């Protein structure tokens, strides 16, 4: 019976992922250390949500070179002003961090003055459409809460997976997930793309996606360990191959939905979509190349006994002479 008109991947995929495991783990580790290094050295380009400052939208009669605006603002004491155009070229979005020792109304007023001064020249009148002041400490509290959330998730995953699977799986799944989160966060450090609250939400949701992906593969590993008579490496390989088409298709469709968000969601959702797009790619790759190989290493090396129902073990023991 011919029932498969279309497949993204060959049905009988049999790639030996385990043979590559040292390479893939090394690559994953290198990427992760690069990400950590970038976060350590470059840090994040925190948005106003975290730093506090003014968000100003200005409408010009005629477009103006952005560098000129930047220079003029710098001359006025705003060193790290971010100036970008949106819509047509005469609409500017400017983010200013307050000058030293200013906040609230004073900062708002100064920011507006500085911007009108910087963008107005002969024959080009600027109109300030929007001027918002965003407080900084809220961001700090939230960053701390993000850390708590991370801890909560790690402990929650540990308990749940150790309970449903085995502690080795739990540890491997958490390492994989944290790897993904670190890499996505590192991406924002490397590129210097703005890190705002929605990016934070995106990164935390990557955690959900990544663990989901890993668990699907582990679930198959658990199933195969019980039914196959083979060494652990063969079981792991078989499991990855069996779930490969599902992994790729799911990621492909999920990626499509997030692309829609990236294209049509507008500026304020772009950071979130970007973190999720990257998270889906990394999460997919790591569930294939990192999660299972980890189960063959050192303390995490799984054996058939680890997954056999305990009652059976005891029964088998009892039968022994």
């Amino acid at each position, binding site marked *: 019976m011919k029932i*498969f008109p279309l497949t993204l991947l060959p049905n009988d995929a049999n790639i030996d992922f385990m043979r590559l495991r040292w390479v893939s783990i090394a690559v994953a580790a290198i990427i992760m250390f690069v990400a950590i290094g970038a976060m350590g050295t470059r840090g994040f380009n925190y948005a106003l949500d975290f730093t506090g400052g003014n968000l100003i939208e200005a409408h010009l009669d005629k477009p103006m070179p952005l560098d000129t605006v930047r220079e003029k603002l710098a001359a006025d004491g705003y060193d790290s002003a971010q100036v970008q155009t949106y819509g047509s070229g005469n609409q500017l979005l400017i983010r200013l961090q307050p000058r030293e020792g200013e906040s609230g109304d004073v900062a708002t007023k100064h920011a507006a003055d500085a911007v009108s001064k910087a963008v107005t020249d002969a024959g080009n009148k600027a109109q300030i459409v929007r001027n*918002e002041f965003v407080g900084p400490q809220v961001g700090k509290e939230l960053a701390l809460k993000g850390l708590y959330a991370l801890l909560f998730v790690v402990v929650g995953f540990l308990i749940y*997976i150790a309970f449903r699977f085995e502690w080795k799986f739990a540890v491997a799944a958490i390492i994989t997930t944290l790897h993904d989160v670190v890499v996505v966060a590192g991406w924002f450090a490397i590129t210097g793309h703005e890190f705002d609250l929605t990016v934070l939400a995106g990164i935390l949701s990557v955690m959900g996606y990544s663990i989901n992906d890993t668990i699907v593969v582990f679930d198959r590993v658990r199933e195969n360990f019980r039914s196959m008579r083979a060494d652990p490496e063969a079981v792991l390989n078989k499991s990855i191959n069996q779930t490969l088409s599902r992994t790729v298709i799911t990621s492909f469709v999920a990626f499509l939905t997030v692309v829609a968000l990236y294209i049509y969601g507008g500026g304020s959702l772009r950071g979130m979509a970007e973190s999720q797009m990257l998270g889906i790619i990394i999460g997919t790759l790591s569930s294939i190349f990192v999660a299972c190989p980890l189960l063959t290493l050192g303390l995490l090396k799984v054996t058939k006994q680890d997954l056999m129902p305990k009652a059976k073990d005891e029964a088998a023991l009892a039968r022994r002479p």
Partner: protein
Amino acid sequence: MLTFARWKYFAIVAVLILSVIYALPNAYPQDPSVQVSAAKAGTTAIDAPLAKRIEGILAEAKIPSKSIKVEEQGNLLVRLADTEQQTRAADLLRPRLGSDYVVALSLAPTAPKWLESLAAKPMPRGLDLQGGVHFVMQVDQNAALDKRLDAYVEDIRSTLRDAGVPYTSVVRRGNEALVATLGVNADKAKAQQRLRASFPNLGLSLDGQTVTLDVPQSELNRISLEAIEQNLNTLRNRINAFGVAEPVIQRQGTDRIVIQLPGLQDTAEAKRQIGATATLEFRAVVGDEAAAAAAVRDRSVPPDARVYYTENKVPLLLSKRLLVSGDQLVNAQPMTDPQTGRQGVSINLNSVGGQRMLDHTLENVGKRLGIVYVEQIPTTSIVDGKEVQSIRTDERVINSATIQGVFGKSFQTTGLSAEESKSLANQLKSGALAAPMVFVEERVVGPSLGAENVKRGTTAVLYSFVFALTFFLIYYRMFGLITCLALLLNLLMVIALMSLMGATMSLPGFAGLALSVGMSVDANVLINERIREELRAGVPPQAAIATGYDKASGTIFDSNMTALLAGVALWAFGTGPLQGFAMTMIIGILTSVFTAVTVSRGIATLLYGGRRKLKSIAI
């Protein structure tokens, strides 16, 4: 084999119907409208003549209204075409209707009555989607502590005095302790016993002649918490009086308050109303205007008096002795004097204030009584390049009427404009703030930006669906169609559940919706791939479907439970937009498990389960 219990079909149909009903109100656009209600229940009628009057006012200004109707809740609702006319109408009606009415901007549902009667309501929209003002205020907790601890010092003094224990001093030592030094012949045991009884929350220790009352951390925390709660209540009262429909006033952390006023665009006015702390002081007038002017000129102010100024900058001498202060005030209402038609405020005092007023008026009929309006205005100034938050106190004599007769607890003061008396009454009634506050964040979202965000969000969700559905239809054919139906029901259920829970829809909420599509895709792909796998292994179609669903279900459960954990963490530790996003994620995960495992299986069984000999299936 491929079977599906009949009751499960009924359950699915029931869920479908309920989802449609509760998601439906979101499909009806909301009318920008102006809501008119009575400033004080029962005093002013909201009736047909008022509707006629409003109609006249609007017609005069050429503002077309969709409808002007008195509602069952006793409000009058004027529906308008757009937000611009809404603002114009409200600005026009406020002064014309006067202080008897509260004029508020609101969004009126256009969904039919039967939906409302089923408690089906549209999701409230976040500020980013409908426009409005967002403030974050910081409460000065140190000031709150100072105020409370200073009050403790006073209380300790009076306790010792009442007990007849001589003391030389009672002082504060930072925020940690209160130290009372007793007189040489003082009865230490008595002091200790009385103080312990009066201040059970404080730790007490005696050393020589000094009694130390330690303020434990728990007590400091309690003071902080009470301060922010009191401020929260005060703000809530002021904002309610100010007339904004569906405001959000929330505590954030230990010292912040988030305020969202949908529909409002004027930050300056909102800040003035929210930030002002007003109180009244009643003081005897010592000399008339001429005497005061002379005193100012000669710098010869009597020692028991102080110079105050009226609104017109005319000096007036008032006694330094405070007769009655704002915290003895029980209630204040704007009113119109029936005899003179003049606007004023009717004031009620508590018994202590009433007694003092009675004592004073008994001896001073014919003399003048000054009412001083004290407003504390938080200001920010720059001193030596550093920002300094300070409170400017604005005092002015608002009234210095002659005492007409003896009065006690309740009396009126007139001579204010209608606006002034309303605003004064509101501020007095809502009480004082426990601690001063400063604005640390403000955002204004314009209504057009909000409309644009709604458009962007819906477009993004729409396309994420189109992308996913198209792929499924091509890739899995008949099972793709089943998946599509499951995904659509999933979306419907998420919207229905969010509406039912009253979750606020915001821009990140749309992202959550798109993400929940991505999540539910996973469950469906797992099932479809498993069925294909079974077919490849040579299992007959019907058995393949049944096994596919059975085997995938376990995987779906485990993988979604873990993803759910991540969602719960985001919800528990996030605030505002993050929580909205997490909520959609959580709901999306739960509904996608239901639709993928149960609903799609039901449809598949309906299609393929009945046939005797099924040769092939389109997957």
